[in-house]
């Protein structure tokens, strides 16, 4: 874990209220795992909390990493105004548990499911798996046509089978990612990230045999495990995990969603 200034390479809107932020800096060499995140300081003094944002891609040759974020409130709004060459104060990589991309075997059926701004870490995981020659099925769900991003990037991944779905059917299939999951054969591995409701439905849907991993979001203070802000309950609801330190990726059956 390092706290380093990073340089903005690019920051542009790629879909409705959705931005792609490319950063460069020394920190990049320490970034490796899909599911880990960066804790980004909003470049304005009145924000005392950092913003947790997942890695969507890392390019060690270019020395850059990519974040895809949605403008939802004041902090992300402020981040949209960062321009190339501006510096951002970044803490990372954070997260004690990433998607276990090295566990699936070549023959395993792997399903990657992302909803909205839960898609970035799923894209990262898809890249890591397909680069190693492992075929994956991807289901990416968006609200509507205007919200779709990285469609082309997904289709360009080798060995992959991609389904785009929108709530209103304005692009790709109509429905939710759950509707698509139901239609597909059961997977050996399922990696998912998205709204809590989507993850809950997925957990209910997948058979016991599936190794289902979910990446969770929670409001954070420290981002490193010290403040107990970001807890999630264990399945039996008798103990807590910290999303920032024990997660953000959890085995679905271990957590109460």
């Amino acid at each position, binding site marked *: 874990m390092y*706290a380093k200034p990073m340089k903005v390479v690019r920051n542009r809107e790629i879909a409705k209220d959705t931005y792609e932020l490319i950063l460069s800096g020394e920190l990049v060499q320490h970034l490796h795992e899909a599911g880990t995140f960066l804790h980004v300081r909003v470049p304005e003094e009145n924000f*005392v909390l950092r913003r947790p944002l997942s890695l969507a891609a890392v390019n060690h040759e270019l020395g850059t990493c990519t974040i895809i974020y949605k403008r939802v409130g004041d*902090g992300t709004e402020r981040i949209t105004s960062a321009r190339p060459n501006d510096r951002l104060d970044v803490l990372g990589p954070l997260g004690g548990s990433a998607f276990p991309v090295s566990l699936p075997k070549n023959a395993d059926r792997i399903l990657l499911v992302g909803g909205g701004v839960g898609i970035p870490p799923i894209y990262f995981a898809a890249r890591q798996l397909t680069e190693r020659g492992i075929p994956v099925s991807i289901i990416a769900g968006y609200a509507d046509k205007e919200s779709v991003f990285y469609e082309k990037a997904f289709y360009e991944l080798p060995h992959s089978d991609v389904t785009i779905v929108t709530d209103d059917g304005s692009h790709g299939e109509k429905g939710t990612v759950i509707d698509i999951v139901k239609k597909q054969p059961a997977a050996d591995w399922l990696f998912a990230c998205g709204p809590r409701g989507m993850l809950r439905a997925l957990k209910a849907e997948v058979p016991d045999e599936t190794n289902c991993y979910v990446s969770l979001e929670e409001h954070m203070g420290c981002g490193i495990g010290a*403040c*107990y802000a970001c807890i999630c309950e264990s399945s039996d609801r008798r103990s807590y995990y910290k999303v920032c330190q024990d997660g953000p990726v959890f085995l679905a059956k271990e957590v109460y969603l």
Partner: protein
Amino acid sequence: MNRERLAIELPGLSMKNPIMPASGCFGFGREYAKLYDLSCLGAIAIKGTTGDMRLGNLTPRVAESPSGMLNAIGLQNPGAEAVRDEELLFLNEYDVPVLANVSGSTPEEYLHVINTLKASKNVGAFELNISCPNVKTGGIQFGTDPEQAARLTQLAKEVSDKPVYVKLSPNVTDVVAIAKAVEAAGADGLSMINTLVGMRFDWKTKQPILANERGGLSGPAIKPVALRMIYDVRQVSDLPIIGMGGISNAKDVMEFLIAGANAVAVGTANFTDPFACPTIINELETWMDKMGVDHVTELMANG
């Protein structure tokens, strides 16, 4: 750099410098230990510890506000025995005194925590948290009534062989009355201030943002309130005061020392910048150089 010019002595706490992380903003140090050597700190105030393990409140537990944040953690902690056997042992590897923040729902619980932790070598003193706004019973109740505050202080002093600091709540009409009451009851020092009770709402859902509805406001936003309360209490009391509330740089530290604090704690700033404490310690010495100040005590009002 000669660290002695920053050194100060408080009851039970022999500090290399006047800076410590504030209770609840540093856990038990383990995470920050991965970032820097904890021995550089003046002391460490550990997370509020209760008799038994506590799970705390539902999430969201934090929200943001201009130059501040709300928290409603609800005193999640592993309980006094675990703190003694695991956390304090871990911290014992570092050359830094611990200020053990003690919380509870009943006087008995507070005393149980003190009794459990008092034999730990590195605990230099206790900090009675009578001001936690985020738990249903105990906590802030003890902190808003001078008589209850005094009674608890007296009981704590009876069982503790180590100095007892009382952490005051700012959510009161008359903080001076509480300070006087706990001083009369034997407190060895004061910690000021805990968080101000606040709320935020989500205008999209019309709901409070925190699951607990109300939370404690901390960060730079509350600094003027902290400074005023410390100043007010300093006019009537000679007790050592550990000042806190929005400190995020060395200039803030100087302001607290002028107001009447003898040492300071840094809370929320650890979240904004995990290196806040060591950075502030270094900055403070740089300022002392610039100002031609030999010893940190000269920065105080009467220094």
